[in-house]
């Protein structure tokens, strides 16, 4: 397997996001449609059912800098959330507490991050954590 360069990987990710080829429970896209560097993305996670997050929609920001995908993106919740891997001060997802970022692989993408965060939200340990008021942001 050859290594797909950053920009072409991100173009593929964008296409999946634009065509909504990924799961219904998440979405993502570029913040600026003319950002030729494809650095700043927004994402949403639909709260998993049978959890405190059910029917809530969480917004996130995802930054894919020049070192992506050799290194993981920088991921932050915009919507307030209580999760062990999220810094309660600013909503940033802490790499050392979230294995998808800590054990990052080149084949992962924005979609992987959002789906794995959603699994965290639904995990038995986290699904009943008291949450900040719906609609509040960092």
């Amino acid at each position, binding site marked *: *397997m*050859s*290594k*797909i*360069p950053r*920009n*072409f990987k991100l*173009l593929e990710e*964008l296409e999946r996001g634009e065509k909504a080829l990924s799961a219904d429970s998440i979405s993502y896209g*570029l913040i600026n*449609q*003319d*950002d*030729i560097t*494809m650095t700043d993305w927004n994402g949403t996670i639909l709260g998993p059912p049978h959890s405190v997050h059910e029917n809530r929609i969480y917004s996130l920001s995802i930054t894919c800098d020049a070192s992506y995908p050799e290194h993981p993106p920088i991921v932050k919740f915009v919507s307030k959330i209580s999760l062990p891997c999220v810094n309660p001060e600013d909503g940033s997802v802490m790499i050392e507490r979230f294995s998808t970022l800590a054990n990052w692989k080149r084949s992962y993408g924005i979609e992987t991050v959002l789906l794995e965060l959603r699994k965290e939200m639904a995990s038995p340990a986290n699904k009943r954590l008291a949450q900040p008021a719906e609609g509040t942001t960092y």
Partner: protein
Amino acid sequence: MSSLPKRIIKETERLVSDPVPGISAIPHDDNLRYFDVAIQGPSGSPYEDGTFKLELYLPDDYPMCAPKVRFLTKIYHPNIDKLGRICLDVLKNNWSPALQIRTILLSIQALLGAPNPDDPLANEVAEEWKSNEALAIATAKSWTEQFAKEGD
């Protein structure tokens, strides 16, 4: 590291030894499937005298599928969108393994000389191209001046 198919080695050698006028394509040292490309705007077009940078990648199944190509230089053209993605039949359904990097780059250069607003990728640009061609061409010229003429 997987070895590079003979076909890609041959194409690359020929791009260097027998370059296409107005087009250069240089592979990255650390990824021989990834090329830095520069295309001169065709004379007589609004892109004349501009140098447009692109990037090109040969996926694993090349030449069974087309190269991936994108403009890095901003360009005002009805078949090229704000992210530099190109709408061109030979990059999509009309790709054939008989085509090559060089023929694809020539097709892109030809597309600069012959915009096709009836098969648009950038809708606003295509609308302007159809409703006020003179203004669209003036905008394309001024973008060329602004973005495609930086020193190097």
